[in-house]
């Protein structure tokens, strides 16, 4: 019996960003990483949500750097037994491939020094309103395929009056069932 590839917790390849888009034409939430913009928005009467940026364990990339004992070729693999397209299983046995090192990384890299961002809430937002965040501060997984993981660059959320509840079910649209 084949294992289910989607039960793998760690990914081995950061595949980039995936975007929902604002198909429903929802009101947009502005994101900023600038203290100046936060203060400006605050003076304009906007509510500000400061959000901590922290790593999501599901976006942690772990893989093996292997070296073929005969040819000397280096290769990455998520493990010594890898599921591939068409149900194929690729094996990297110890006797053929030596482990050079375990490699770790992260699936979302941003040029932002500080560990926070802020959402600027529109003054005309309505309690319970569904909104669109085009620049998501939080690190969420949008979708996976085999060893690859895509982070979510945007999101839909519901305004509770105090915070934005992210609708992670929106990312289900990357899978179709039926």
């Amino acid at each position, binding site marked *: *019996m*084949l*294992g*289910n*590839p*989607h*039960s793998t917790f760690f990914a081995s390849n950061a*595949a980039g960003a995936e975007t929902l888009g604002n198909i429903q034409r929802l009101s947009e939430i502005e994101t900023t990483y600038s203290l100046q913009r936060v203060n400006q928005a605050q003076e304009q009467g906007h509510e500000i949500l400061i959000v901590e940026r922290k790593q999501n364990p599901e976006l942690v990339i772990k893989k093996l750097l292997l070296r073929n004992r005969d040819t000397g070729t280096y290769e990455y693999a998520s493990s010594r037994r890898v*599921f591939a*397209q*068409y*149900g194929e299983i690729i094996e990297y046995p110890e006797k053929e491939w030596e482990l050079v090192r375990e490699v770790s990384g992260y699936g979302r890299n941003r040029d932002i020094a500080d560990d926070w961002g802020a959402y600027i809430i529109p003054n005309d937002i309505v309690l319970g309103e569904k909104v669109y965040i085009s620049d998501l501060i939080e690190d969420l997984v949008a*979708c*996976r*395929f*085999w060893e*690859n993981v*895509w982070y979510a660059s945007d999101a839909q959320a519901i305004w509770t009056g105090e915070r934005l509840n992210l609708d992670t*079910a929106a990312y*289900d649209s*990357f*899978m*179709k*069932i*039926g």
Partner: protein
Amino acid sequence: MTLKIRDDEVYDQNGIWLKTISCPKKLAMRDLDEGSQGNYSCIFCEKTIHNTDIMTEKQIVELSKQQPDVCLSINLKNPLFERFG
């Protein structure tokens, strides 16, 4: 030769319609149990949901023609499927 997918409609490599992907229960992956052979099982319909991640284009086409009401799970990141429209 990729299969084509537009909204919920799946077509073969020649553009011939294969099936509509539509779950009456509106299930998501988190609602499914792991079944046998890498597939999933549905707790509502007790049907097997065939995991196209581990199928070939030919297997998907043949299965869809033989069992028009077969349930499939399709990952839109699967290079077997090409989104259009």
